[in-house]
């Protein structure tokens, strides 16, 4: 391990850190990682402001998790899939989710590809294989395994990265998904973003295992714990897991990190955790650490972070203005997409509803009745 890596890991667990050879390629990769991490933070900050201003309903931030999410997802190729557990929206943007769609989803407006059906923070992007996910914990885990099975069965070169939090390791989906993946030997790997808290339940109350990574052993797959606040370490671990997956060997990586803010904008974490604990993790902030590393390498200048933040903020703010002006949601979306075609009973229900809406003046011309 080089001196650079030790420096990067000086404040964290450095077991798994790997250091890229020096060179222009690594520098560009590092700058890209830095920018993607910064975007996660800037996006969160902007969205929180919008939430406090009453413009969007709910935000679940990834503050503190930037290295874990970006580093691990950076290992994926464009045609691989990322199955989200909750806070991977910023990683999805890195992989191709347009900012416009991200922000439209936060507004749950008519530009939202999910047609405003999900609450805020539930992103999807078909173009970069980022499937729609539900708020139910752990259910996506067997989905990712099944999709990886399908890739193998169809002879398609895909890896499926399946994300979840520490709390999800207690769910049915974790058990059944891990077990099926190992038995079926499908091209997937599991990323447990262990941020210490499942809403207000700490990891010590979630499991008696020393590490969530130990759970992999029982399923007959490799499992390892990684310093999730070290972006290069998470990237290296994910690349290893990716390589294993390509060979049909699923594995589990547990990214040890810390959720700096509440579970969501509706949560007050001061009720259940110590300020001292938060302060200790603040000192290990993944962006500060990576910035310090890049500065020490001479990869960036002192003002680079502020410059990139400014760029990203401008980009995001432009898109916020666009999304503020989205047209009204079409009322027909109430009954569409339940089935491939809108069945008769739903057309009937809608038509009765729209007749009342028209009488009361709530409907607009495009909202008219379905043919029966």
């Amino acid at each position, binding site marked *: 391990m080089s001196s650079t890596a030790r420096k990067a890991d000086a404040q964290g667990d450095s077991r798994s850190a790997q250091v890229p050879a020096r060179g222009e390629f690594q520098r560009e990769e590092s700058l890209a990682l830095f920018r993607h991490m910064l975007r996660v933070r800037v996006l969160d900050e902007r969205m929180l402001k919008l939430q406090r201003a009453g413009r969007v309903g709910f935000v679940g931030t990834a503050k503190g998790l930037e290295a874990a999410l970006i580093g691990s997802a950076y290992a994926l190729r464009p045609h691989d899939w990322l199955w989200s557990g909750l806070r991977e929206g910023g990683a999805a943007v890195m992989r191709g989710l347009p900012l416009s769609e991200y922000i439209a989803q936060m507004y749950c407006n008519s530009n939202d*590809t*999910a047609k405003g059906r999900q609450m805020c923070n539930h992103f999807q992007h078909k173009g970069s294989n980022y499937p729609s996910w539900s708020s139910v914990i752990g259910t996506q885990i067997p989905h990712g395994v099944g999709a990886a099975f399908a890739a193998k069965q169809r002879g398609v070169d895909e890896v499926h990265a399946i994300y979840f939090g520490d709390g999800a390791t207690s769910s049915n989906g974790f058990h059944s998904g891990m077990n099926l993946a190992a038995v079926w030997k499908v091209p997937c790997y599991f990323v447990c973003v262990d941020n210490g808290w499942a809403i207000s339940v700490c990891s010590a109350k979630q499991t008696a295992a020393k590490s969530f990574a130990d759970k992999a052993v029982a399923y007959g797959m490799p499992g390892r714990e990684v310093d999730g606040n070290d972006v290069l370490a998470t990237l290296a671990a994910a690349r290893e897991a990716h390589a294993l997956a390509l060979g049909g060997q699923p594995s589990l990586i547990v990214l040890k990190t810390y959720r700096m803010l509440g579970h969501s904008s509706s949560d007050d974490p001061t009720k259940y955790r110590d300020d001292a604990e938060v302060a200790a993790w603040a000192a290990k902030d993944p962006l500060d650490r990576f910035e310090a590393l890049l500065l020490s390498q001479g990869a960036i200048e002192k003002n680079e972070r502020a410059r990139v933040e400014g760029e990203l903020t401008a980009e995001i703010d432009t898109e916020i203005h666009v999304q503020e002006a989205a047209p009204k949601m079409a009322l027909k979306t109430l009954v569409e997409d339940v089935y491939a075609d809108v069945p008769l009973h739903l057309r009937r229900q809608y038509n009765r509803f729209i007749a009342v809406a028209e009488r009361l003046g709530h409907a607009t011309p495009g909202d008219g009745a379905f043919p029966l």
Partner: protein
Amino acid sequence: MANLTLIQAVNDGLKVAMRTDPTVLVFGEDVGPKGGVFLATEGLTKEFGESRCFDTPLSEDGIVGAAIGMAANGLKPVCEIQFQDFIFPAFDQIVSEAAKLRYRSGGQYTAPMVIRTPYGGGIRGGLYHSQSGEAYFCHTPGLKVVIPSTPYDAKGLLLASIDDPDPVLFLEPKALYRTLKGEVPEGKYKVDLSTLRTAREGKNVTVFCYGAMVPVCMKAAEQAAEKGIECLVVDLRTLLPLDEEGVIEAAKQTGRVVVVHEAPRFCGFGGEISAIIAENAIEYMEAPIARVTGFDTPFPNTLEHHYMPDDRRVLDAIEHVWSY
């Protein structure tokens, strides 16, 4: 044409689907070399190999959850839950995921898949091999719920379900697996989902039923006919989406309605049939709607033949609404 039992028709339907569509695959507990505990999947592993018909770990939520991922990534999974009584670990995957994926993604992602499972009583299976849970699933928008009662429908509805773009729960009345035979065409044909079947014409009393209650109601209708009461027996066969027009029309034809199912009465499917008729055709009704159902109790073992509606109880209800 072949003269097949209902389970042979299911087996034939699976084979036809697998022969005509290479993305169709069958999996579940004991469905591989053994061919399933009822032999619905007999011979599939032999003909199509372990990659297309295989045993899974004992994990219902894993089976259904993985099927959703397969369906979202280009396969046509037809998974089996060994008994409908064991489906509840997968309830979350069915209700929260399969049924909602299209809607919550605005149509970007879908889960076209079939979950086959034997349901209902009549085999002395006790509490946990006999239940009829259709009402739980019919309360779930996004899901289709199909129940055949003849070999012809079993194959045709199954093939339609496999081709359907939405997730289908295919409930097989295990009591009928081997108790009746019927003509089944060779090769592929489909029976439309969401149209009911008139099992018997009659102008006096309409009897709504499905699954294993169809032959029971047919027997009761024969006995009623001997007493001069002609029954229109309606096999609903697709409970969700329901052929509501057909239900209303059939109710209007006689103005006297009996609804029969083996599931418990309270919040059962019969309540929905009754409500649809009350909302749309109450002015045609000559008598209160009668329900003949299982008791609002868990399913018994020794007394199962008393728990399940039989021809005598159905006939009694027919006579009651006729003489009202």
